[in-house]
Structure formats: C-alpha cells, structure tokens
C-alpha cells in the first residue's frame, strides 16, 4: 500500500513546507552513528529522520523495490530474543537499500556455547559488517555493543529499556494519520495503555511523542504503571474510561506475559474488562480516534478483534511505515563515520 498523507490541512502544509525546504535546502548535519534510544535525539533530529523516512516510503511501492543507497554495505541482524516483524522489517529495509544482510540466530550459534555478547559482536564485525542490528533481553545491551565495536549499532529492542524504531514508526503513523506533514504533534493527546512497566515500546513512544509536542497519558493498573513515569512528563491514569473521551490516539500495548513475574493483576479476564479496548469502549472515544498496537496482538485481551481490524486501527500501516522508518535510519547512520 502506498504511504500517502491525505488530510486537507496536510496538503496546505505540504505546499508551504516544500517551498520553504527547497529555498533553504540542502543539508542537515546528522551526527549519530548509532541509534540506541530516542532520548539521544533532539526534536529536530527526529523530524529530519521521519522526513527522510517519508522520502523512502515510495520505494516499497515500485515494481523494482530497490535503491542503491547502501550498495556494498553489510548489515548483521543479531537477535537474541524472538521477533517476527522487527527482524523481517530490518532485513527488508536493508535489502531495499541494496545492502547485504546476514542473520544470526542465537540458537545453533556460538552464543548457545556461551560466547559473550561482546565477543560475538566483535567477531561479526571482524567479517566486515557495517551495521549491527541488535535485540537482547537485557536493558543496555545495545549501548554495550556500541562501546565495543567500531561499526554502527541499531537497537532493535533491549529489555525493558528502549525500542527506538518502534517509537519512530509510531510517531510517523500518528503524523500520517492526523495529517501532520511537518511531524509536529503539538495539541495531540496520546494514551498509551496497558503494561507500561515492562514495555520498551512505551518508553520509546513517550520520548518520541513528547519530543514532537504531543501530550501523553499513560493508562494501566497501578501494578504495571510505576509512579516514576510522571517524571517523563506524562499524566498517569488508572481509569481507562475516564481518559478515553480526551484522546486523539490510543496506543494499546501487548500484555507481556513473558516478562511479568509476580501477579500483576488478579486475572486476565479482569485485565481485559478494565483495560481491554472493546467496540463498546471505543464508542466513548472521539469518533475519529486512531487505534494503534505494536503487535503481536493478544486478541480478546488488550484489544478486541473487531477493533484491531476496524477502520480506526493502524496496525498494518504501522508495519508498512516501519519499513520506511528503518530504511531512513539505516541510510542516515551509515553515512556517519
């Protein structure tokens, strides 16, 4: 599907924006060799990155879905945790930029024999890799790698800490859906709902949305929403129904059963009743509210199927946009020595 920006506000904006850009072009001083967190980026850098991603969005709609921008570069996917979307998305993004991609699966590799993360990465780098895309269950793993190797490192999710490309693609999707061609999200209120505590998606989303000017309300049971999150400039709420009518975007998080160690809520059924997004509950929200979910979906728990597949859902647009965003990230970081 072609990524297009459609609203009317948008087209007026676009016309002005492109004239301004054309007049004042033609460069932006991008300094980051690694993408570890969104916290490391300024609002201006996030906007430039998303603008760059938009420039790549048409590549996936061509008959030959390839441009030569990363010809001769090698990208290594180093995933120590399960992933479908992110791994494939990075693989495809790199392929569409004409880079070569190598995949390392932790099972069946030396990692299974006890090789340390740092040793694995250094060995991979010694084979002439330009970018390592890493996912790991330990927070800080990507930063550790970036300190250990000379090539670029992209964090594809580290523990509960950060998942920057998810935050970026979610911001891109909100901008696209609400017609903010300049990636300024001022005046938009975003609710992030569910298991905030264990969610790196939530953390990266908070940074991305607030830096672009949106208001963020975090919603979840007290056991999954530590009060410390208010320090990130968010409103905290435990009553989903009270928050619903006030928001423009609802980002439903997956309940991460694999990370929840103690009894965070009495039963899955009670969680679904209080925090699940059902058709009935959606009716209380603004009629044009945008519903997001990073996937994979727990259908019937945090989101009802009819909502996930409904017209307000951006679940699949998020996946499509993820590809453009990852192309943009790969392109920019490989241009920094």
């Amino acid at each position: 599907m072609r990524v297009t920006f459609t609203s009317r506000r948008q087209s007026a904006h676009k016309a002005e924006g492109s004239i301004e850009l054309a007049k004042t072009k033609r460069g932006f001083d991008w300094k980051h060799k690694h993408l570890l967190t969104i916290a490391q980026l300024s609002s201006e850098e996030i906007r430039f990155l998303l603008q760059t991603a938009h420039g790549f969005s048409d590549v996936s709609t061509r008959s030959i879905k390839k441009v030569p921008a990363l010809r001769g570069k090698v990208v290594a996917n180093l995933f120590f945790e399960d992933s479908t979307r992110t791994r494939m998305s990075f693989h495809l993004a790199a392929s569409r930029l004409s880079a070569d991609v190598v995949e390392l699966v932790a099972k069946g590799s030396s990692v299974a024999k006890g090789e340390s993360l740092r040793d694995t990465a250094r060995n991979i780098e010694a084979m002439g890799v330009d970018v390592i895309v890493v996912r790991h269950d330990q927070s800080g793993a990507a930063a550790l790698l970036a300190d250990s190797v000379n090539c670029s490192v992209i964090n594809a999710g580290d523990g509960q800490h950060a998942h920057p490309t998810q935050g970026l693609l979610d911001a891109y999707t909100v901008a696209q859906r609400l017609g903010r061609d300049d990636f300024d999200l001022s005046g938009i209120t975003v609710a992030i709902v569910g298991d905030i505590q264990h969610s790196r998606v939530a953390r990266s989303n908070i940074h991305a949305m607030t830096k672009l000017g949106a208001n963020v309300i975090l919603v979840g049971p007290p056991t999954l929403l530590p009060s410390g999150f208010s320090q990130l400039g968010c409103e905290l709420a435990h009553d989903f129904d009270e928050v619903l009518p006030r928001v423009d975007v609802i980002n439903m998080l997956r309940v991460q059963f694999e990370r929840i160690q103690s009894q965070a809520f009495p039963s899955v059924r009670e969680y679904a009743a209080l925090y699940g997004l059902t058709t009935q509950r959606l009716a209380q929200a603004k009629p044009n509210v945008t519903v997001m979910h990073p996937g994979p979906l727990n259908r019937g728990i945090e989101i009802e199927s009819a909502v996930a597949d409904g017209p307000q859902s951006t679940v699949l647009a998020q996946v499509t946009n993820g590809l453009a965003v990852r192309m943009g990230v790969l392109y920019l970081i490989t241009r920094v020595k």
Partner: protein
Amino acid sequence: MIFTVTDARFGERGYDTHMQTFADANAVARLIDDLGVRIRGDLTGAVGDAPLADTCAMVGIQSRGDVMAQRLAAQLELPNDRVGSLDITLYRDDLSEVGPQPIVRTTEIPFAIDGLNIVLVDDVLMSGRSVRAAMQSLMDFGRPRRLWLAVLVDRGGRELPIHPDQVAVDMSNATTNNQQVAVTLTPTDERDAIIIQDCDGA
C-alpha cells in the same frame, strides 16, 4: 522552517553579492517556450500521428527540473498524470562523501513508463552525473521506448558521455571556471531567472 539547513545555491542569506542575471523572467519564459516547441518537434517525429498524450511523458529531476517538466507538459498538453518527478539522491555517485545529509524526497512517477517516449528534464547540465543517476533511477521503474534529454542550460564540463537532445541555451563559453550558473523558477523560488554567480574559493 522545519530544520536548520544550509543553502547550496546561494549561501545562507539568499542571493549573494557577486552575481549577475543572465536571463530574466521574460527571457526564461521565451527559452522554455522555445524548448517546448523543439521537444514537440522531436516527439512528433518519433511517434508520427499518435497523440503525444498516449505515447509520451515528461520526467523532471528535482528540484528545478520537475518545475520545468510541469511547464513543458502544459505547453505540450500532456495530462498531469504524464508528468513525473525524480529525486536522485539515492542514486548519486558521490553519496559516500561526508558532510550535511541531503534531504531524501519521494520520487513520483504516476504512470507506467514501459513503451513510452520519456523526456528527462533538468535545469542545468554540467558533468552529466545527475543525468546518469536519473537514468538509472528511471530504469528501475521499467523500460521506456526511448529516453530524451532536454535542459535549460548546457554549462559544458561533461565528465560522462551524455549529450542532450535539446538545449535552450548553451552557456559553455559564457562563464569561467570559478563561476556558477543557477536557475531559479517559481513557485520553488521567488522569480524565474538564470543567474551567473562568482564563487570565490567555494
């Protein structure tokens, strides 16, 4: 403004001191009009009685060639969906050079290029490297019947075996090595002009 950027064309403050207007708005209009007449001649010669709207298309190289392509297409009465615009950033051969990152823009080719006579349009032709990149980019969309090249200004100084089919004005002897030719076109710029600018040490 969305982000801090530096201007490659005129420096930060816009039009700079050491510059002269080679062609003003009226002259540019005449040059483009004349170019259009000659392109029409080429295309008609190639397709015979078939309507140009069925057999031909224009593709401009961003960010001035696309404006020219729009104007030429209007003159040749080609429909809007026969006008494309190419961003060649990703196809440039100097991509690995460090420095400020160019803004990647979308390429928009709203028609199937296979079998068409396509006129590639750019404002200034010099080394030929942009044209090479544009040809490579365009070929990724399909196989045109024939590609033509039309430019407003031929600056000379070719580094590749590329020769335009139509040139509005040959300036290969009108400038010295430390001068630069810039084309401004509305609505991207404030006015239509061809400008010669001294670039001391730049």
